[in-house]
């Protein structure tokens, strides 16, 4: 709950202190810095200072070319990297007029949803750990390791995949992969229920997260919040349902929204539970994808020196942290003229300054964790 303090004139004079939650701190969200002006335990304002992980990825794109940029897109959000791969591939394909074969699209979706589950497991575990419950973190990471094993079989890498290519995916599913994914999903669902039982409805946990930092729908849309953060505020917008790209139109799944069970609609608890519910939805999509995947090639024929005609395009993909908006300009050469990514964590960071007024310092950690902010997305 945010605390309301009234300071009477002539009362006890307290000084405001400026604290620095430095770029190094034991939270798992990356290199973030907050300059906190606090009056004792209650914050007046927490200003984020970003840019510690700025790697000038967008400028690098102009140097490495269309194909060469694919590994860099992993690093835009290395926690859920497949969606970034997909965004970039779709940019290039839209500009170049390339159609991805159906099997390739299905492979992309399987990879993207597995990566989404990975990311949400990490988010759930990290939120729990930031609030103090250290055990669900290890359980969630144990499940995540199994997905990493699956993806390692698929493309050889466990974190930065470089699995997709312009025109499809790099490798077909290995033999027996579909059965393994199905059996893993059977194993995963009771584990998520277990984490839920352990963590989500505990009294201490709901008191810490319920009613904290309520984001109204108008505020969410104005600040450009996307993905689970937006849906937690009650707005049912999911790019996979509203504007189905790739073959998402083939699948049946729900879009969960926050209901405000433990406080206001759009509080920290809603945002945290969104990720648990979304894991269940991803499991549904994966089961259907693994069932219905057609035969065929996985990649279209794309020239080695890929030169899409001049033009620009906006592509949005639903990544784990919300819809990533890619803007890409081509000037007809082998190198993109300009690439710009607007990520979900960027918007979430910008809203924290506004939300932090009146919260306690302990709440700031909860807010950062439930917005699922990762530094590479903010800084690129």
């Amino acid at each position: 709950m945010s605390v309301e303090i009234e300071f009477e004139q002539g009362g006890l004079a307290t000084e405001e202190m400026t604290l620095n939650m430095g770029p190094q701190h034991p939270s798992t969200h990356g290199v973030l810095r907050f300059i906190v002006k606090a009056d004792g335990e209650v914050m007046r304002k927490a200003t984020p200072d970003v840019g510690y992980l700025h790697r000038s990825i967008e400028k690098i794109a102009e140097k490495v070319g269309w194909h060469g940029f694919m590994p860099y897109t992993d690093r835009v959000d290395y926690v859920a990297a497949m969606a970034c791969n997909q965004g970039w591939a779709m940019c290039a394909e839209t500009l170049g007029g390339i159609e991805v074969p159906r099997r390739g699209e299905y492979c992309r979706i399987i990879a993207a949803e597995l990566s989404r589950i990975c990311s949400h497991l990490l988010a759930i575990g990290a939120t729990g750990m930031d609030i103090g419950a250290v055990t669900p973190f290890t359980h969630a990471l144990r499940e995540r390791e199994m997905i990493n094993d699956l993806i390692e079989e698929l493309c050889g890498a466990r974190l930065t995949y470089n699995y997709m290519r312009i025109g499809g995916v790099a490798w077909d599913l290995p033999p027996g992969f579909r059965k393994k994914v199905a059996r893993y999903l059977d194993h995963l669902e009771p584990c998520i229920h277990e984490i839920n039982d352990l963590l989500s409805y505990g009294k201490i946990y709901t008191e810490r997260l319920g009613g904290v930092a309520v984001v109204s729908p108008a505020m969410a849309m104005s600040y450009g919040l996307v993905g689970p953060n937006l849906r937690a505020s009650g707005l049912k917008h999911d790019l996979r349902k509203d504007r189905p790209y790739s073959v998402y139109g083939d699948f049946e799944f729900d879009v969960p929204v926050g209901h405000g069970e433990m406080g206001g609609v759009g509080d920290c608890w809603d945002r945290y539970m969104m990720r648990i519910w979304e894991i269940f939805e991803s499991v549904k999509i994966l089961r259907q994808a693994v069932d219905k995947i057609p035969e065929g090639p996985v990649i279209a024929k794309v020239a080695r020196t890929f030169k899409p005609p001049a033009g620009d395009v906006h592509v949005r993909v639903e990544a784990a942290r919300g819809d990533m908006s890619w803007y890409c300009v081509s000037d007809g050469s082998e190198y993109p003229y300009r690439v710009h990514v607007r990520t979900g964590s960027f918007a979430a960071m910008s809203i924290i300054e506004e939300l932090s007024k009146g919260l306690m310092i302990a709440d700031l950690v909860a807010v950062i964790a439930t917005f699922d902010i990762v530094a590479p997305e903010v800084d690129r």
Partner: protein
Amino acid sequence: MDTQAIQRKLEAAFGGVVGPVASGRVESWIEVDPDRIDEVAAMLAGDADTRFECLSNLSGVDYPAHGHIQVVYNLISYTHGHELTLKVNADRDSPEVKTLSGVWAAANWLEREVFDLLGVNFVGHPDLRRILLPDDWVGNPLRKDYVEAPDYHGISTIRESMLRIDLPVKD
């Protein structure tokens, strides 16, 4: 509403400030004057037929060949489900564009990023300062004619060759 209908609506309200619908190979967009973009945006956000509640993307692109820096806005409407792209061309030597942070709070940080990396001055922005680069950085890296300073606070920015082979000097 499709882009043509929106453009007609805007032209009716603002006249020559708003250009015609231009179409590239994939997308269409409307060009707007840089000093009236805030009014246009306010109308697009507030009007019941357009209802663009969300600024989805704000990018700056440097076109030295054309002599301008282009700021591209991508607006989406959750109520109606339509999208719109607006483009603003600002003169390259002293680019000035009206800020949209009064219309959408998302524009605050997005415009700071364009200011940081491209040097566009957003008139009326409440807090225009660098966001990704350190505060004392010189230059705007995403400009096509950007040359990096040889060192930053004594740290050399020139990468020596990773391959150091001391070969004997042949006479």
